[in-house]
C-alpha cells in the first residue's frame, strides 16, 4: 500500500472540496482498503466521511424512508421499517458479505463498490476499467461470473452489490452533494453501462459525495433471491429483486431488477412491460422472462446464466404472487 494523508471530514462541504481536489472518500473501508492493499486504488489523500452526520434512517413527510449514506449495512437491514415496508432490501443486505463486513460497510460505500472481476483486481494484468485502453482479458478469458446483458467489447464485468439490485427494484434516489451543489440521481441511473469508458462505474464526478438514499414507495410484497456457489458469503452468480403490487389476481405494478448479469443492477423493463396489468400466471411469467432475456448476449462460457435467470425469475414471481 502506498502512503497517503488521512483526515476526518469536518463537514460535508469540506469533504466535497477535498474530493474536488482529488481526495478519495473513505466510508467503512471494506472495499476501499481491500483495493488499496491490491494496489488497485492508490489514493494520495483519504477523507473519512464515515463520521459525518449521515447515519440516520428517517421517515419523510411522504412516508418514504431517507437513509443517510453513512448508515451501516447491518443497521439498515435490521431497521423495523425496512423489514416491514421493503423486505427485499433487508433480504438483499443480509444475503451479502458477512456479518462483520456488514457492520462496517456503509450504504454509500456499498453503492460504489467496484467489480469483483479477477482481472480488474490484479494489477499485473490488463484491464480497461483500471487502465483505459489496456484491453479486457475477460472477453476471451475466464468469464463465468461476467455479464450477459449490456456489456461492451471493452468490459464485461458485473456489479457485485446485492443492495443496489434491491434499490433498483424498489426505485430509489441518491442525494449527492457536489462542487456545484446538491442534486438527485435515480437508481437505476446511478450506475452506468460500460460502453467505451468502463473506467466510470457511475455517473458521479470526482468529488461528488453521496449524502443519502431515499426509497420509493413502500414495497411490502417483495423478495430477493440470490443464487450462489455456496450457501453463504459468496457473490451472486445471479440474483433477482422483485416487487409486486397485486390487485384482484392481476399485477397492478411490478418491478424487477437482476443482479450478476450486467455492469449495473439490471432493471428488467421488458419483463415488467409484459407483466404490468396482466394476470399472474406461469405463462405470463415465462413470457416476461423470455422477453427480457431475448436481449441477452452471453459470452462463450456463461450462456448458462440465460436459463438460470429465466428459471429463477419465473419461480421468484410465482412464489411472490402465490
Amino acid at each position, binding site marked *: *500500500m502506498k*502512503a*497517503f*494523508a*488521512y483526515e476526518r471530514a469536518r463537514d460535508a462541504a469540506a469533504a466535497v472540496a477535498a474530493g474536488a481536489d482529488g481526495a478519495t472518500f*473513505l466510508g467503512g*473501508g*471494506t472495499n476501499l*482498503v*481491500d483495493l488499496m*492493499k*491490491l494496489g488497485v486504488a492508490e489514493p494520495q489523500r*483519504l477523507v*473519512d466521511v*464515515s463520521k459525518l452526520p449521515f447515519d440516520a434512517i428517517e421517515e419523510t413527510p411522504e412516508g418514504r424512508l431517507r437513509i443517510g449514506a453513512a448508515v451501516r449495512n*447491518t443497521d439498515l437491514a*435490521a431497521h423495523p421499517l425496512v423489514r416491514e415496508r421493503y423486505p427485499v432490501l433487508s433480504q438483499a443486505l443480509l444475503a451479502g*458479505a*458477512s*456479518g*462483520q*463486513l456488514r*457492520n*462496517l460497510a456503509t450504504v454509500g460505500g456499498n453503492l460504489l463498490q467496484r467489480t469483483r472481476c479477477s482481472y480488474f483486481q490484479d494489477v499485473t494484468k490488463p484491464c480497461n476499467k483500471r487502465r483505459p485502453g489496456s484491453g479486457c482479458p475477460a472477453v476471451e478469458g475466464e468469464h463465468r461470473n461476467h455479464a450477459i446483458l449490456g456489456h461492451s467489447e471493452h468490459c464485461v464485468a458485473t456489479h457485485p452489490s446485492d443492495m443496489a439490485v434491491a434499490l433498483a427494484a424498489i426505485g430509489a434516489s441518491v442525494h449527492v452533494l457536489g462542487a456545484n451543489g446538491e442534486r438527485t440521481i435515480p437508481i437505476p441511473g446511478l450506475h452506468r453501462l460500460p460502453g467505451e469508458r468502463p473506467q466510470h462505474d457511475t455517473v458521479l464526478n470526482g468529488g461528488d459525495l453521496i449524502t443519502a438514499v431515499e426509497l420509493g414507495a413502500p414495497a411490502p410484497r417483495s423478495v430477493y433471491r440470490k443464487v450462489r456457489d455456496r*450457501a*453463504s*458469503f459468496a457473490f451472486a452468480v445471479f440474483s433477482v429483486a422483485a416487487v409486486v403490487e397485486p390487485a384482484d389476481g392481476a399485477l397492478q405494478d411490478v418491478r424487477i431488477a437482476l443482479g450478476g448479469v450486467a455492469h449495473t443492477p439490471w432493471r428488467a423493463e421488458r419483463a415488467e412491460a409484459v407483466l404490468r396489468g396482466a394476470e399472474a400466471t406461469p405463462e405470463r411469467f415465462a413470457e416476461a422472462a423470455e422477453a427480457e432475456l431475448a436481449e441477452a448476449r452471453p459470452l462463450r462460457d456463461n450462456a448458462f446464466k440465460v436459463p438460470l435467470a429465466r428459471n429463477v425469475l419465473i419461480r421468484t414471481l410465482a412464489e411472490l404472487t402465490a
Partner: protein
Amino acid sequence: MDADLTLRINGTEHELTVDVRTTLLDLLREHLGLTGAKKGCDHGQCGACTILIDGRRANACLALAVAHDGAELTTVEGLAQNDELHPLQAAFIEHDAFQCGYCTPGQLCSAIGMIEEARDDGATLDAAEIGERMSGNVCRCGAYPNVVAAIADTIA
C-alpha cells in the same frame, strides 16, 4: 507518514503513533504483541481477524487504525476475566469447536458480536441461524458443527 491515535484495548488505554497504512490487525499483532487476532487472508475474506470494535464484530484487517482513533477494541485476549474463561471459551473447549486453532480467536469474537446482533434483531438462534450468521468465519479444519454447538450451548 505517521499518525497519532488513542485506542482503548481490552480495557487499557493506549496512545500510539503508527504508520498511517497500519491496519488494526497489524497494530495489534506487530506493535502490541496481541497476536490473538489472526491474519488469514488480509482482505476481509476469512474472518480470522475478527475483533469487536465499539462492541461490534468487524474484520480488523480492513480497519485502518487511523480511521478508528478513539475506538474501544475487544480482542480474544480480553475475553477471559483473570483466570476464568468466558463461558464461550469454555464451551469451545468442551465441544471441540476448533482443531488447529487459527480461526478460533476470530470465531469467538465473532460469536460474541453475533449473539448481541441476534438479540437486537429479535432473531431465534437455532442451528441454521447460527450457521448463517457465523459464515463470515472460515474454518478449513471443518469445526463448524462444534462451533454451532458451543454457541448454542452458551446461549441456552
